[in-house]
């Protein structure tokens, strides 16, 4: 026996959240040929199928690109501080499994030496519903990082397309259960498993000192397109913004691919060339983060390759590393 819901039922679920004044986000077509995760104001804007992966990730709904932490203003000679709060509303986020899977990975770093209240509160307030994939493109490599089209990590409920506008619902948490309570029907239809992309790379050993960085990543231009569309990249900068009368302190996205990221006040830059910055990105994802927290910092979503204007992306660099190891093997 399974629980099923129709596409109309899913939209009705989203509408109900919106009617209650809560937030809903999911894949939506922002312009011809461009699908992004966006906050939506009408359930009709949600897309469930017909694309592989949105051009961004869901991290924006937990870790916004710009988050004011507190504001200050001058009253006479007194500085008045005012705390900022993340919005109090609940969120319903429709996602791909590779985006949801990033959340338990990110939980580690946002609760490591200090608990990031903003992140945690958004996380608590959010119900993540994933739709298991039924197609993939050349950039997808979830199956190479231990995930797959039906991965449940980070999801409160997983949907499986049954065809004919029906979805099987498998709640995985109490939040997911609550979201679908009274909205599903019993059925004897169950989803046929979908294997997803073939394994594209065996996760190679990442070496710090290797000619592969220069060989394979010199084309990188040092933009933030990969990091900013990646569900797991989470670097931020704390900035003060405003003037003598008032302003704020905010947390803004940052990326290790920018040349300024490691620039010292002295003018020295330990990562002085782009291949070193690429090395940092790969090394952090596949060596530093797992060493510190366990999981690797990549869900194989492929966005870094899809969005890289220079045709790079993590999968391509991993393949180059793999090939460089093979070169060194005796014939």
């Amino acid at each position, binding site marked *: 026996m399974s629980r099923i819901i129709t596409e109309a039922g899913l939209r009705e679920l989203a509408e109900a959240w919106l009617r209650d004044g809560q937030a809903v986000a999911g894949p939506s077509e922002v312009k011809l040929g461009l699908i992004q995760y966006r906050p939506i104001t009408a359930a009709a804007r949600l897309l469930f199928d017909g694309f592989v992966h949105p051009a961004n990730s869901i991290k924006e709904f937990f870790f916004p690109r710009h988050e004011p932490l507190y504001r200050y203003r001058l009253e006479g000679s007194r500085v008045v501080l005012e705390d900022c709060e993340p919005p109090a509303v609940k969120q319903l986020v429709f996602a791909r499994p590779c985006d949801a899977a990033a959340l338990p990975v990110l939980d580690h770093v946002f609760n490591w030496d200090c608990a990031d209240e903003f992140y945690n509160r958004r996380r608590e307030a959010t119900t993540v519903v994933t739709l298991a994939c039924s197609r993939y493109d050349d950039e997808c490599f979830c199956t190479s990082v231990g995930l797959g089209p039906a991965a449940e990590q980070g999801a409160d409920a997983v949907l499986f397309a049954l065809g004919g506008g029906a979805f099987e619902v498998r709640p995985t948490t109490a939040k997911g259960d609550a979201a679908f309570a009274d909205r599903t029907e019993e059925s004897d239809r169950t989803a046929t498993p979908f294997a997803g992309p073939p394994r594209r790379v065996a996760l190679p050993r990442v070496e710090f000192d290797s000619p592969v960085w220069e060989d394979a990543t010199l*084309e990188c231009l040092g933009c933030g397109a990969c990091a900013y569309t990646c569900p797991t990249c989470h670097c931020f900068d704390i900035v003060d*913004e405003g003037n003598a009368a008032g302003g704020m302190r905010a947390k803004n996205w940052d990326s290790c691919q920018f040349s300024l990221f490691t620039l010292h006040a002295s003018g020295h830059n330990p990562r002085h*060339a782009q291949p070193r910055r690429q090395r940092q990105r790969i090394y952090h994802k596949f060596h530093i983060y797992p060493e510190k927290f366990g999981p690797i910092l990549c869900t194989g979503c492929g966005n870094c390759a899809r969005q890289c204007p*220079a*045709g*790079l992306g993590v999968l391509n660099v991993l393949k180059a590393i793999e090939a460089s190891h093979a070169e060194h093997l005796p014939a």
Partner: protein
Amino acid sequence: MSETNGFEPKIVAYVCNWCTYLGADLAGTNRLEYPPNVRLIRLPCTGRIDFNLIVKAFEMSADAVLVSGCHPGDCHYTAGNYHARRRWMLFRPLLEALGFDLRRIHFTWISAAEGRKFQQVIAEITESARKLGPYRPYEANGESKWRPAGLPPPKRRSGDDASLRTTARELLAEGKAGVVIGRGERGPVLARKPEDADRLTWNGASKIALTAYLKRKEVRALGKPAIVAGPADLRALNVLEQESQIRREDIHVIAAEGPGAAPPDFSDLDALLQLEPGERMAYWAGEFDRCVKCYACRQACPLCYCERCIVDKNRPQAIDTSAHARGNFAWHITRAFHLAGRCVGCGACTRACPAGIDLRLLNQAAARAAERQFGYRAGADPKAEPLVGVYSLTDKEEFIG
């Protein structure tokens, strides 16, 4: 009456030290009364007035902005006002494309002797701003449904791949080039070894301008570059040469076509300008709402070569780094203006943007002004004087009061 009742506009006036400021002073000493709505900010010269200041004034709740300096011929620094005039001829069309209300932005010449003119100008501007009502920066009236047709797909190049690879292989093998910058199946290729030449193809993918690699330190370190250049790349090389960034003899150019003489297609820009200013602003507010400040647009651009971009300068922070409406508008206005008269229309910024923002339209607004006002097309002629670096006594000034 009812609508303007109680509303007192704030006017920010950026004035030059030598003429208009003294004109204001004269108005004061002569007891010529003018509305107290104006905040004077004294700068050395109109030529020194950065457009960021105008944007900043609006961000900080100015309802109108005035820039005023010495009459032509009177500039204390000889020609600062001529430079300002020329820049405004490019800047105003850009603001127009963004949907700014140009009735809130004023430019005048007021000499040290014109206390009375200063009085009149301030009275007029205050009155007009009072009628226009309060200005809310970047406030969009709802959502715009307008969508540009977008960039056409790149044209197929006519070059022959086999001879391209032979040329590249020979250049690398004979040490005549340290790197051949070209396109491959997946994206740009920096061929460094003769065998890499086989990855090059005329019709490969690249969302970026190949000439963008010429600014990169790690690419420069490879020795003399050769570049597989399409028409836009050739135009970019011309601008880089005009701006003394490269010497042509230091670069080996492999090209199958010339820099292209066909006029750019401005049809999307025309359609944008058909919209009401408010809707234009709504369109951009919607687009910039997706901007995450990844700077792929800048990195992919052949002419964004500053070692430290103005947005990365933080002493003081001229542009908010936050990817909110204010920070994004300021960033895109500044970037487009810094490319006025320089953008070669390669489309790289628009192709590279992960958020699908049609940045090209902003660059086109300035590019078309350059064509119309000066018959100037960036990159067409490497010997031409850079448009914004020079001025002419006959530059039009119908917008100056």
